[in-house]
């Protein structure tokens, strides 16, 4: 499609949230342009062939959180999205044993009983508690977070909804909810389980992507953040997008383009243009200028405000608050092309859990020590790893007989400490190699012959994630998921409605409520707010023009 000088809305960044916003707005009849700095779309939801024949989901790697309302509204299956659930997972130990997690409840019970009959009983209570919290939070994901300091009818209405929902829980559940939200995942697990390995296996979801440890209050919520999704109605289930995570972005883009949207790749936003305190369009790095009364930024709030907007048009308080927004890189990634399936000597042949998420951490203290390393600017000596071999389920990911392995690594700092300085610049080839070595050692706990199978390995530190995808400090959630940056505090108190003090500029990425993960909710919510606020003001012409 040819480019025009004027649009109703320009979306900066073709990540999954930007595309979601764009697709909703295009469906509403607006003329929408998405601009992307890379030559490919998808942001951190991409499939890339970095080794001939192998497809890497080289950033996000599994799917669960994508809201089904969005899948339905935007007809994503029609545009090729297919999510295949995977079964269970496992944690391997150094002494050659494993704990397997099965989605089959009875199988899981028997497996837990192998370590502790008490824990098998406790799991009943544990999973009920988590499920209750999931049910409580899910309706809030596609709603706006109310500003408690505002008396606008919309905020009061949302507040009333919150109070009603909380009241509906009853005194007992409300108390449990307050506790759950403020607890550490370590304490929560300690209340239920006695076996170290079982606790370590379950704790992983509480720290993925955060700058917190398993004993930090608030990590129980982070766990919830990873459980509140669903696949085909199975709450908490995870799966692979067929063809890699890029399939999600591709489906969103196809849905968007079918409704008349345009995507311009290869040139990022240089500046968000303003006039008289209002957005007028964007100037791209390649010199092109596009006009629009509304710009929705899929970039994180720090990048959007501090790099692409003239500070003079924004209130000082707001800029300071953005500057203090916490967005810390804490995870790295290895993407590995394997010549064949490696051996997992501890596991029975063809065990179903080998097709799920595999880990090698054995206790909560081990996980917490991994966090202590990160605090002083080092990657963990014994990192938590979340590794999967999706090509066992999705044959499109690697040539026949070969496999692709994705290894998520927690923790790795963005500002690596080397010789007394802490900086993202310190991530050179030697450091990356040294970190990869640490991680491969960790993988060897589960599969000792892994080194013999590696054909190609991509090592991504938080610095690469920032450089390539644009996520500040390589934080996968576009901002820490802590209380002070969630719900009405996300991204900035008073601006949880996706707006900014600059009229016409909206935040539609994961920096906004309800936060990160390949969820699409911030994008959908931003689109709703843009439609409500801007079409009413009559600024956007749509197809009529």
């Amino acid at each position, binding site marked *: 499609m040819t480019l025009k000088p004027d649009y109703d809305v320009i979306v900066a960044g073709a990540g999954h949230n930007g595309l979601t916003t764009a697709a909703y707005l295009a469906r509403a009849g607006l003329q929408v342009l998405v601009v992307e700095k890379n030559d490919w779309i998808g942001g951190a939801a991409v499939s890339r062939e970095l080794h001939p024949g192998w497809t890497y989901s080289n950033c996000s790697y599994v799917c669960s959180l994508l809201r089904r309302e969005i899948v339905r509204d935007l007809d994503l299956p029609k545009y090729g999205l297919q999510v295949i659930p995977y079964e269970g997972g496992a944690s391997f130990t150094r002494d050659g044993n494993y704990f397997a997690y099965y989605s089959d409840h009875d199988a899981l019970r028997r497996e837990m009983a192998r370590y502790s009959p008490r824990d098998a009983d406790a799991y009943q209570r544990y999973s009920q508690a988590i499920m209750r919290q999931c049910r409580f939070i899910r309706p809030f994901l596609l709603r706006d977070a109310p500003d408690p300091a505002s008396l606008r009818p919309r905020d009061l209405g949302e507040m009333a909804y919150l109070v009603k929902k909380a009241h509906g829980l009853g005194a007992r559940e409300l108390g449990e909810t*307050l506790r759950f939200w403020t607890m550490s995942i370590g304490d929560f697990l300690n209340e239920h389980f006695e076996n170290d390995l079982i606790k370590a296996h379950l704790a992983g979801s509480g720290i993925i992507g955060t700058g917190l440890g398993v004993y930090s209050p608030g990590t129980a919520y982070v766990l919830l953040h990873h459980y509140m999704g669903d696949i085909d109605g199975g709450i908490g289930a995870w799966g692979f997008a067929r063809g890699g995570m890029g399939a999600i972005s591709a489906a969103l883009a196809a849905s968007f383009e079918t409704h008349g949207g345009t995507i311009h790749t290869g040139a990022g936003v240089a500046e968000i243009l303003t006039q008289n305190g209002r957005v007028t369009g964007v100037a791209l790095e390649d010199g092109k200028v596009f006009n629009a009364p509304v710009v929705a930024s899929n970039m994180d709030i720090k990048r959007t405000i501090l790099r692409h907007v003239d500070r003079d048009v924004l209130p000082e308080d707001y800029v300071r608050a953005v500057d203090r927004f916490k967005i810390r890189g804490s995870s790295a990634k290895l993407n590995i092309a394997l010549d064949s399936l490696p051996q997992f000597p501890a596991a029975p042949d063809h065990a179903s859990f080998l097709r799920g998420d595999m880990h090698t951490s054995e206790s909560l203290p081990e996980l917490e020590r991994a966090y202590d390393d990160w605090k002083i600017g080092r990657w963990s000596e014994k990192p938590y790893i979340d590794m999967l071999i999706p090509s066992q389920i999705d044959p499109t990911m690697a040539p026949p007989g070969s496999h692709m392995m994705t290894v998520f690594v927690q923790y790795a700092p963005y500002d690596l400490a080397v010789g007394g300085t802490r900086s993202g610049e310190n991530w050179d080839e030697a450091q990356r190699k040294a970190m990869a070595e640490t991680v491969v050692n960790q993988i060897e706990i589960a599969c000792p012959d892994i080194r013999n199978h590696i054909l190609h390995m991509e090592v991504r530190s938080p610095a690469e994630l920032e450089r390539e995808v644009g996520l500040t400090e390589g934080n996968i959630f576009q901002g820490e998921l802590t209380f002070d940056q969630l719900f009405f505090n996300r991204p900035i108190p008073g601006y949880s409605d996706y707006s900014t003090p600059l009229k016409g500029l909206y935040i539609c990425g994961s920096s906004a409520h309800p936060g990160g993960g390949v969820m699409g909710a911030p994008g959908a919510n931003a689109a709703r707010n843009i439609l409500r606020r801007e079409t009413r003001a009559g600024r956007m012409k749509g197809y009529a023009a």
Partner: protein
Amino acid sequence: MSQFDTIVIGAGVNGLVAGAVLARRGKSVCILEQGDTVGGMAGLTSSDGPALAHLIYNLNSRVRRDIGLGGKDWPFKSKALPTVSLSEDGKHVVVDGAAVRFADGSDHPQATACSDLIRRLTRYGDLLRQLAEAPPPGGDSPVSRAGLKQLWWLGRFGLGVKRLGKSEMRAFLQVLLSNAYDFILDELPDGRLSGILAADAVRGAATGPRSPGTVFSLIYRMGHGGDVTLPQGGTAAVMETLSNAAKQAGCTLKTGAPVVRILTDNDHVTGIETASGDRVYAKQVLSSVAPLPTARLAGLHHFDIEATRRIRNIRARGTTAKVNLRLSRAPVIPGLPGNLLGARLLFAPSADYVEQAFNPAKYGDMSSAPVIEAVLPAPQMDRPWLSTIVQYAPSDLSGGWTDAAREELLQTTLATLARISPTLPELVEEAQVITPDLIEQATGAPGGHWHHAEMSLDQLLTIRPANLLGRYAIGPKGLFLCGAATHPGGDIMGLSGRNAALMALEKTG
């Protein structure tokens, strides 16, 4: 056989306050204390050493009023102490109220930012204090009298928050649940300032400044104006005042009378039995011991399985030890003028230092470089005591608190103090090392924890000490908790005892 309206178990701050409040409302009250002296954990001493709690910063004015010592009736003055952040290079920083300067009198570049922050925290603290000054809401129908009272109370708090103004209210709601480390470092890059605030945020707690929720603790500490005071005559004098207030109100006070059983009949308390087999009868029993020991006194069969589980899950890991050092003379701290020797001396050179000190405690080890709060209650005295609070020394030390472990803690403390006063270790004539296990032994507080239950967000307000146990009454009818494990928590504040007494009165009319 003796009969009272109410029995209070434990003559610590909260037990004495609860007894006095009830007696002043016309109840006949008997307070039973296991030890030979009153004062509980705060007054805990070893021979003639200083008491466990060496400073007071939040004895509540409503408590004083309700025990008959409000306003001018409070018998003695307390001296507000400046805080000194000790620095190895001798460039110490003094925080006096909200004023900040270097110990040599020169201006500190971040003085204004620090004063603003302290004033902000004090303002927020004032709001949280209102929440502390009443039993937490819950349980009553909104149309009942009690329910309306709670609504009024909540509404008043809401109004207070609203009155902060839009942007301050937003800031309040944001920082309330955030972590002290980021919150402080955003404003104060100087380690000497960030360190002492971070240390205050985690004092007595099993947490580090990077943990979310620590700003709440910091604000809570500032709830009574933020002044740290040294009472004339020490903590013992405060305890004596409280016990006199209880006696004056008509309480019968028995020391050396450990309660071994809470008697019940038909799921209603009827009294208690002491170790010597004496029975004292009453329809209400208020226990200032922690929830689990209290439940055990009454018998766990009075609690359903869920309540038992909740009580067992209350976290109380003491992390703080007291090290009292008898010095041959007042120490010399290079860079510190003599008139500041009596200040609250803090060694916490940066927020990172505090966090690093916390790391080993997570794994059951003591800090190799601990955070120390030191007070010389009487520097001019011959052979003065240096009273120090050393963090972190976890109650669940791997290997246990053996004599060797205590010696290690003492040496670590001395080595740390030597960093700011190299000659100090030579002055030590005698040392008392009171570790969490000894505090537990002496007081029965689980884990020797200052607050009987960790003051973390998931154990505060309506869910303190545990969900559905936040209204003081537990187990059999007539049994109440009135200790630091209940809302709003410990320190020499007295509100737990007072609130519990008010709740007990409400139940009997």
